[in-house]
């Protein structure tokens, strides 16, 4: 969720500076950022669901347990 906040902050910066420069490139970049962020949320949450199913706990900090 904090990643989403950071990505939204970057999007806001892109849109604002696109308005300053009079160029739509900032908005197009913001659009791509939104798409990538949505994909990332989907995959991340699918990983959380898979971890939760196998381990019945949502703490991903334990995922380093494979390491000795």
């Amino acid at each position, binding site marked *: 969720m904090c990643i989403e906040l950071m990505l939204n902050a970057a999007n806001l910066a892109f849109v604002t500076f696109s308005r300053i420069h009079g160029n739509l490139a900032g908005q197009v970049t913001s659009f*791509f950022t*939104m798409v990538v962020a949505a994909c990332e*949320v989907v995959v991340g949450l699918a990983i959380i669901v898979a971890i939760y199913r196998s381990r019945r706990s949502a703490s991903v900090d334990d995922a380093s347990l494979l390491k000795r």
Partner: protein
Amino acid sequence: MDSFAIEVGQTLAPEATLFWILAPLAVVAALGMLFVKKAVHSALLLAWVMVTLAIFYIAQDALFLGIVQIIVYTGAVMMLFLFILMLVGVDSSDSLVENIRGQRPLAITAAIGLSGLLVSLIARANLGVEAVGLRGANSEGNVQGIARELFTNYVWAFEVVSALLITAAVGAMVLAHSNPAKSRTAQRDQSIARFRGTSLATAAGLPSSGVYALHNAVDVPALLPDGSPAPSSISATLEARGDMLSSKPFELEVKKEEED
């Protein structure tokens, strides 16, 4: 074409009012998202931030992006977060004990360094530039302008991102897939089981609701052909609460016909 943005140059009163009312609220919501105890409150505060950002986008002549922000981010991404929160359990919490040694000071240093770098770069590119505004770029409309950019200058990125979307969807399906708890019986096994049951009722199947009675609600049991209530139609919860009704008042009356 529609434009909700005011001309640039100096921030005029309407836009300043919008900004100074909504922006502190958005910052408070974002800080609340970090410090609130319950995960669902956190997700809802993030949705508030995203809606505020959509308002800002629309106020800055990014109409397409504002609507996409509401539909994709607030509508899809936040709902996905909330679903997963509900699935995983709203009370489950991470332990706050840090596993990696020295991560906090390193993270703070890196954050300060990166923010300094970004601020200086963005300032060099943007301070002193005449604000142009998007009236020219949006002359055919914001959606048409973005489409023109997207399909000429950014078409390769567009194709790659669509491949990314497909990969993400397939990946999520693979990750969230689970094998069913018991394997489904085939038709032949189901048919054998039906005829080896204790009574012919399993072979013939129960009559559909309302065949022997006039009521088909869940609190009235269905009747078997001999008039007794079918055990499989009695809801266990309602039976335990004593809410099951008798089917007597709802039975069909058979009219006795005089034989001629």
